[in-house]
């Protein structure tokens, strides 16, 4: 049996976290989800319950999703991360590329969540 996949979902919008979490669970069985509503809370959560992959919003109170990505990569350079954001400026997309973060566009949809899971944690 495959070990449980742990997914960190970080978004200041509660409804977006709820939708992402529900879609992840409907697509993949046996997934544990850890939610956080800002970067600081996400870092604390990741230290307490290390997750395998992370799905991050960009525009949040406090640190941005890309700043959070840099912190998460300092904790674990191999952690696959996705930026799921409405901020689809080329400059943000380029900085995500430089940080090694996959870029996906909001709104939260099952198709997009499926692509994120296939990219960050392909099933064997």
């Amino acid at each position, binding site marked *: 049996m495959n070990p449980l996949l742990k997914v960190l979902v970080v978004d*200041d*919008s*509660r*409804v*977006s976290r*709820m*939708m992402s979490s529900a879609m992840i669970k409907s697509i993949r069985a046996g997934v544990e989800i850890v939610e956080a509503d800002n970067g600081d809370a996400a870092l604390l959560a990741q230290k307490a319950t290390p997750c395998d992959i992370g799905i991050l919003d960009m*525009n*949040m*109170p406090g640190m941005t999703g890309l700043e959070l990505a840099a912190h998460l990569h300092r904790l674990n350079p191999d952690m696959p991360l996705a930026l799921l*954001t*409405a*901020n*689809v*400026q*080329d*400059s943000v997309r380029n900085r995500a590329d430089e940080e090694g973060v996959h870029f996906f566009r*909001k*709104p939260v*949809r099952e198709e997009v969540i499926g692509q994120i899971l296939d990219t960050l944690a392909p099933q064997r």
Partner: protein
Amino acid sequence: MSIADETKHAPARATTPAERLAMSDLQLDAMAETFNLSLGEAAAVFSQLVQEEIELSVPTVELLPRAALIERLEIMQDSGPHSRLCSITQRFDAAGAFHTDTMLIFPEDDSLEIVRRMLGDEATAETISELEQDALAEIGNIIINGCMSSISNLFRKEITGTLPEVVINDSRTLIMEHCTADDVLVARIGMHLAVHNVSGFVLFMMDIPSIRSFVGEIEHLFDI
């Protein structure tokens, strides 16, 4: 000076904001095309959000005195059974070149319908009520950022924004609280769902220096 005073003291034929800014037809046309592109982007995102194909009206772009904008919104506000509008506002700054308060406005009833569609058929009335403010903020965030990202990519200029603020109020209060500029750049697009007409405004509220700077970016973009 109040709007009533402004009206009382207005000349017989008031100059339009475009005339006061000395904008040519070509500049106005280029501005319309810029917003056409960005509002089209926002509409595509909106369609994904409500999980339904939507019919779009032709976007219109106007420079209006603030009092005229309030009159327009009052017409929109009175079209529904409740006389309030829902607004989601974010302030953007384009690397010091221009700044704008960008506001997405729906009649209050329409905004609730959009939340229902975003959350899906399984969402109970209790859930919708509990998540309404958060969902509206996220809807505004997605649509407004779609719009501003498009403008950023066209101008090749990074634009930073604040987090969305949701306010439900009458049109006069909404505009008076958010808009200090005398002239307002108003880009409007109608978005109609199959079973429920939803008409939304996107407003770009800029002061005169910002409008001039914005026009400068457009001139550079279109080489005019």
